[in-house]
C-alpha cells in the first residue's frame, strides 16, 4: 500500500516537474544521488607475491576516483578487492562484489586472474577492464564484458624487436630466454615471426619454468651461442633476476640486451641505473611520455603524493578513468550501457590518442622502446631511461582469434 502511494507520489511529482518545464534529467540525477555512491571494484593482488604492484594499482584507482569526485551525481568510491594473485579467490570475490551490486571493475594485473574475472563479469552484465598481458584476453577468450588497455605480445615485440633490427642492421644473431607459459610463448612466437621476416638468425632459445630464479645456466648457453642480441622474454622479478645475472656475467659488454616486456619505473628502481644503462626495455607506459594527460597526471601525482606514477599506478588510473568517463558518456553506470559507451571510444589517454576497438575490446595505444640512461645523464631520480621509439602494432581481431559472443 505504502509502495503504491510512493509510486503515485513520485509519478505525480515527475509529471508536475515535466509540465512545469524543470528538466527531467536534473530530477533523475537527484534520484540517482539517492542510490548512494558509485562503486568501482578494483580487483588487484593486494596480498601475495604481486602485492607491490597491487598497492600502486590501488593508489592509481583511488587517484582516478578522487579526481572524478562524482559521476552521474554519485560519489565515486573504489572498493579494493584482494585477489591474492590467484584466480580462485579472484573469481570468488568478483562473484561476491557483483552480488552486492558492483558492476564496474578495473584491475587484474596477472593474466590468469584477469581471464577468470573477465568471464565472471561477462556472466553478470558487468564491465571489467584490465592491464593484464595474456593475448587471450582480447583474443580467443574475448567476451562482451572484458576490455584490455595493455598492448598484447604481438605489439610488444613489433615495437621492440623491429626498431632494433632497423637500428642495428649488423646484429644478425639473436638469442632468446623465455618463460614456458602462455605469455612467454606468445612473445617468443611473435619474435620468431619477426626474425623470419627480417632474415635474422635465431641462434637459440632457453626455456625456464615459472618458478625459476637462477638463470646462470641459460646465460652460459646464450654466451656459447655467440649472439649479437640477447632478448629476454620473461616478466617481473624473473626478468630482473635474469638481467642482473646477465650483467654480472659481463654480457652487456659482449652483446646488446633487450628486455621486451619491462614492468616500468618500479623495475628500474629495483635494478638501479648502473645495471640498466645501455639496456633496451619495452614498456607499456613511461612517466616521460609527452602527452597532455600524462603530463597532467605526473605533475598532479608528484604534487599530491610526492611520487612519480609508475606503470601499475598509471595503468590502473587510466582504466578506472575510462570506466568513469564511459559511465558519464552513457548517462548510466549499468554494465551494458557502459560497454556500449566504451566500444569504439576515442579519447586522449596517457599514451596520447587511444581508441577502444569495438570488435575485440582492445585499446589501441602506443608501446614504447626505452634505453637505460647512464647515472650521470639522469635529470632526476626517476629519469632512468629515454624513449627511443613508440608506435601502435596490433593484430586484427580476426587474426587475434577473437569471436565476440
Amino acid at each position, binding site marked *: 500500500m505504502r509502495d503504491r502511494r510512493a509510486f503515485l507520489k513520485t509519478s505525480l511529482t515527475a509529471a508536475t516537474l515535466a509540465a512545469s518545464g524543470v528538466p527531467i534529467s536534473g530530477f533523475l540525477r537527484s534520484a540517482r544521488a539517492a542510490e548512494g555512491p558509485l562503486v568501482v571494484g578494483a580487483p588487484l593482488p593486494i*596480498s601475495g607475491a604481486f602485492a607491490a604492484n597491487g598497492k600502486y594499482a590501488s593508489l592509481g584507482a583511488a587517484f582516478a576516483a578522487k579526481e572524478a569526485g562524482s559521476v552521474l551525481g554519485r560519489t565515486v568510491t573504489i572498493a579494493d578487492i584482494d585477489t591474492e594473485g590467484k*584466480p580462485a579467490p579472484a573469481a570468488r570475490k568478483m562473484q561476491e562484489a557483483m552480488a552486492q551490486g558492483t558492476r564496474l571493475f578495473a584491475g587484474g594485473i596477472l*593474466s590468469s586472474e584477469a581471464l577468470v574475472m573477465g568471464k565472471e563479469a561477462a556472466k553478470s552484465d558487468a564491465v571489467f577492464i584490465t592491464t593484464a598481458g595474456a593475448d587471450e584476453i582480447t583474443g580467443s577468450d574475448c567476451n562482451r564484458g572484458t576490455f584490455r588497455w595493455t598492448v598484447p605480445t604481438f605489439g610488444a615485440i613489433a615495437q621492440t624487436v623491429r626498431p632494433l633490427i632497423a637500428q642495428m642492421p649488423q646484429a644478425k644473431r639473436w638469442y632468446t630466454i623465455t618463460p614456458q607459459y602462455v605469455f612467454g610463448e606468445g612473445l617468443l612466437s611473435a619474435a620468431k615471426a619477426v626474425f623470419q621476416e627480417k632474415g635474422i638468425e635465431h641462434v637459440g632459445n632457453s626455456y625456464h619454468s615459472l618458478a625459476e630464479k637462477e638463470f646462470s645456466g641459460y646465460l652460459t648457453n646464450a654466451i656459447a651461442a655467440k649472439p649479437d642480441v640477447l632478448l629476454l622474454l620473461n616478466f617481473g622479478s624473473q626478468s630482473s633476476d635474469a638481467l642482473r645475472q646477465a650483467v654480472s656475467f659481463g654480457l652487456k659488454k659482449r652483446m646488446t640486451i633487450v628486455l621486451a616486456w619491462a614492468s616500468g619505473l618500479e623495475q628500474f628502481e629495483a635494478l638501479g641505473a648502473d645495471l640498466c644503462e645501455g639496456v633496451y626495455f619495452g614498456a607499456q607506459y613511461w612517466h616521460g611520455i609527452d602527452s597532455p594527460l600524462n603530463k597532467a597526471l605526473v605533475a598532479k601525482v608528484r604534487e599530491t603524493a610526492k611520487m612519480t606514477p609508475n606503470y601499475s599506478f598509471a595503468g590502473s588510473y587510466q582504466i578506472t578513468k575510462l570506466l568513469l568517463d564511459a559511465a558519464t558518456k552513457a548517462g548510466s553506470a549499468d554494465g551494458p550501457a557502459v560497454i556500449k559507451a566504451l566500444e569504439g571510444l576515442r579519447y586522449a589517454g596517457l599514451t596520447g590518442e587511444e581508441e577502444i576497438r569495438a570488435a575485440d575490446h582492445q585499446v589501441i595505444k602506443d608501446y614504447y622502446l626505452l634505453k637505460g640512461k647512464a647515472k650521470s645523464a639522469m635529470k632526476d631520480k626517476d629519469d632512468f631511461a629515454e624513449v627511443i621509439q613508440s608506435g601502435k602494432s596490433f593484430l586484427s581481431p580476426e587474426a587475434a582469434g577473437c569471436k565476440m559472443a
Partner: protein
Amino acid sequence: MIPFLDRPLVQFGLALATVLILPLAMRSGTLASEILIFGLAVAACNLLLGYTGLLSFGQGIFFGLGSYVAGLGLMRAGLPAPVMLLLSLALGALVAAAVGWVSIRRQGVYFVMLTLAFSQMFYFLAYTFSGVTGGDNGLLDIPRPRLGGTVLSDAWTYYAYVAVLFLVLFATLQRVALSTFGRTLLAIRDNEGRAGAIGYPVRAFKVAAFAISGAVTALAGALHAMLIGVAPLSNIDYHTSETLLIMTIIGGSANLFASLLGAGAYLLAADALSAIWPRWLLLLGLLLIVITLFLQRGLWGLIERAVALVTRTPPPAESLPLPLVGRGQGWGWRRQPPPVEGHPATPTANSSPQGGGGQPGARPAPEANR
C-alpha cells in the same frame, strides 16, 4: 577429551548445524560454499594426517585433478554433473592409490619428500600439457551443474547442492573413521610395527586410506571448479597441499568436524584480513606458531576447553595424549580418562607416525585397549 563432544552423532550434528547456520550468518554464498568444499578436502586430509599419521604434501594433486575432471568432463565431454562427480571420485581414488602405493614405501622425511616430489611432478604435467589443462590460464568457462533443468547459477542454490554432498561425504568419512578399517588406521598410526606384527596388511591399509582421501579431495576439487567457473593451475600446485595441511592443523586433527572448523577459520580469516593488511599471511604464520606451541589440538582444543570450563570437567591437556577406547564398531567411540599422574601415559614406542610425527595429541595404540 570431552566424551560428549566426541560422540559421532554430536559431531555430525555440529556439521549439520554449521551447514544450516552459514546461510544465516554469512552474506556471501560463494564463500560459504568454499568453506564446505575446503571442509571436505581438509577432512580427507585429516583422514591421512590425524587418523593414519601420514603427513602428505600430495593432497593438492587430487584437488587439482578433480578441478580438471570437472572442466574436461563438463565442457569437452559434455558429461552430466553427477557422472562427472563420480568420475572425479574414481580418478581421484585411482591416482591417490598410485601415489600412495609408491610413497608409503618410505617413512618419515623420505615419505614427505616423495609426496612433495609427486606434487611437483603433477604440477609440471598440468603446466606442460596446456592443450588439455589450459596451462597457466587454466580451464575457463566451467558451467555450474543443472538440477531439474535449472542451472544452479545463484550462489545460495549452489551452496545447497554443495551442502547435501558435504553432509553425505562427511557422514561417509565418519563411518570410515569409526569402522574397523578406521580403527586399524589408528593402530597403524600409533604403532605401525605392532599393527603389522599382529597381522594387518599395513601397506594395503595405507593405500586404501590414500585412495579414500584422494577420492574425496578430487570431488571437492570438482565442486570448487564448478563454484568459481575455472580449473586454475594453482589448484594442483603444492601450495594447495600446504594450505590444506595448514587448515587441518589449525582446526585440529582430533576429529572430522575440527577439519571443517579449520577450513572455515582459515577462509574467513583470509577474507577478512586480506582486506585490512596486505601481509596478512604473517599473521597466519604467527597463528600457526601459537597453535603448534600451545594449542596442539587446534581450534577444536579451544572448544573442548570452553566446554570443560562450562561443564566444570577437567580441562583437556594439550600435550598429553589420551588413548582411544573402542566400544565396538560403528558410532560408539569414547576416550579413556586421563592417566594417573606419574604413571607413564603411553609407551613412547607408540609414537612413530610417518612424516616425522608431529601429529598433535598422538595417541597410544588402540589395540592395547582391546
